[in-house]
């Protein structure tokens, strides 16, 4: 009788109870004891067989290791805990950068001109990861940086608990990078990761004049489907969405019931080549205390394609995103768009690169204005039509330490900016 069959008989007997089992099968108490004893013997024999098989395998392994000249292996311990039972692993890594900047700004409508040079301690981006069990991992990215007045700033940038269910479905919850496009998924706070010293204008952070919700708080679903013609991957977010101003990432509450939904897919015929598309929908809550222009909600739709060809020695990345705001206060629509093309070519440890950034903002969108005391003050700093050229050189001094020299020339609606940066960025 098979193991399962015996267990079923035993289960039936036990479920019926000894008395009823005796009745139903005409088994005496002695017969019942014999069945139990027989089952116990069978189990013990099978356990001994398994032990013998394990010993045989270990003996074979010992012989092979001896032949290969390696250290003696440890005996297989059938009772040793799997990862799911073991203590969670924890690792701490990080990124940092130090840089010197030169900037010259000139107003396009007057004689105002300003030149500054300064060194910047870019702070430290600490990265904690933990494998909680076989399929569950935790990630925390916290940035320690300095404000304009030299004050310490602590930014918890990412906190994600992720469960790997299958290749095609991973579920994560927490604060992370919104599924918007290539840059936002591949690079973020560690400048060592990216070729350039700074992010594209399109992907500036929310607290740095950025027009996009690059962070989210909520649910993240992602997966990969690997086919012969290439790899399809997706990332979807279901999250709190934006607050009433661009800099407000809603961490612990949501000012409206509407949730932000985003979906990004990409197709990669080879690992370093791909195209993709992202779409995001949200409703930005109204807030009349800011000013009468923000009395009602704004419907937001963001969408756009991205492509990349990052196969050594070439790096080519291009993205465009359109941001459409339907303002319920003024009943006006505002369409903004931005993007960039970045090209680099590696010569051994040196990568010369060029990037073209563009940002086109339709004027009058109340969301991208500053407010003070219930009055609209003016457009947010840096959120205006801009064309920027960036040229630079990255030198990988060691695998985890890079030096970069970069020059930028930007023409915005209100001013011209020229600048340069020398940066040391590293991972540790």
């Amino acid at each position, binding site marked *: 009788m098979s193991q399962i069959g015996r267990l079923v008989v035993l289960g039936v007997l036990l479920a019926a109870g000894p008395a009823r089992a005796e009745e139903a099968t005409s088994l005496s108490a002695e017969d019942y004891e014999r069945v139990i004893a027989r089952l116990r013997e069978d189990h013990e024999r099978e356990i001994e067989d398994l032990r013998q098989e394990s010993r045989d*395998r*270990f003996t*074979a*392994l010992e012989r*092979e*290791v001896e*032949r*290969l*000249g*390696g*250290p003696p*292996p*440890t005996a*297989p311990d059938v009772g040793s805990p799997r990862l799911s039972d073991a203590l969670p*692993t924890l*690792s701490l*890594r990080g990124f940092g950068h130090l840089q010197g900047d030169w900037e010259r700004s000139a107003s396009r409508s007057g004689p105002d001109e300003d030149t500054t040079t300064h060194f910047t301690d870019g702070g430290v981006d600490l*990265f904690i*990861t*933990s*494998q909680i069990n*076989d*399929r569950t*991992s*935790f*990630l925390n990215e916290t940035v320690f940086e300095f404000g304009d007045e030299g004050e310490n700033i602590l930014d918890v940038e990412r906190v*994600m608990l*992720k469960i*790997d269910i*299958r*290749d095609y479905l991973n579920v*994560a919850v927490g604060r992370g990078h919104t599924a918007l496009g290539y840059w936002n*998924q*591949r690079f*973020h706070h*560690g400048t060592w*990761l990216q*070729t350039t010293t700074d992010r594209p204008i399109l992907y500036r952070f929310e607290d740095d004049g950025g027009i996009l919700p690059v962070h989210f708080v909520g649910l993240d679903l992602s997966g*990969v489907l*690997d086919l012969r013609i290439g*790899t399809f991957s997706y990332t979807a977010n279901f999250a709190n969405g934006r607050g009433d101003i661009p800099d407000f990432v809603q961490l612990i509450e949501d000012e409206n019931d509407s949730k932000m939904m985003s979906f990004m897919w990409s197709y990669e015929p*080879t*690992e*370093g080549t791909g195209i993709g598309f992202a779409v995001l929908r949200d409703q930005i809550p109204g807030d009349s205390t800011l000013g009468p222009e923000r009395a009602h909600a704004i419907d937001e739709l963001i969408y756009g394609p991205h492509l990349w060809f*990052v*196969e*050594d020695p070439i*790096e080519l990345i291009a993205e465009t995103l359109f941001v459409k705001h339907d303002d319920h206060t003024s009943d006006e629509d505002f369409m903004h768009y931005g993007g960039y093309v970045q090209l*680099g070519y*590696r010569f051994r440890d040196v*990568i010369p690169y060029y990037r073209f950034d563009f940002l086109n903002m339709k004027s009058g969108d109340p969301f991208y204005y500053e407010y003070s005391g219930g009055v609209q003050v003016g457009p947010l700093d840096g959120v205006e039509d801009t064309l920027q050229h960036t040229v630079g050189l990255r030198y990988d001094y060691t*695998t*985890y330490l890079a030096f970069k020299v970069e020059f930028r020339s930007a023409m915005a609606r209100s001013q011209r900016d020229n600048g340069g940066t020398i940066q040391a960025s590293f*991972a540790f």
Partner: protein
Amino acid sequence: MPHPRSSRLRAVAILRAAGLGLAPRGGEGEIVAIVHPSNPIAELSSRDIGRIYMIRKRSWDDGSLIRIVLPPAGSPASLELGRRVFGKGEQAMSTYYLKSIFRQRIAAPPERATSTADAVSAVASDPAAIALASRADVAGAAAVRIVPIDGF
């Protein structure tokens, strides 16, 4: 930035088909995969190896999570893995895994065997493990099963 190159794998496969491969299949220098004897996988392609070692394919067909064992640093298997899958060698492999941690594909880099014997030991004790080694180093091993890699 260095990046893995599946197209390079194809190029290697073409070279091999033309008889220009560096480690001909069946030769002692051939790089093979080793898995637990209970693993039913019959063969692997160079693309499969790329997917597994680049954390794109994370589970076997039965759903169990693949445990990656990296070959010993500096070994022929490690050099070939770095060159053919990660494009620029062992260092590119380390960089790739660091970026994968940043993207939360993995929480820590895969374990690296200290010797071929260590790799054999790791695979022999875990039905979900896979390692790479030179065929000559693992020929005749009974505690693990050798799986040839097509095009590698």
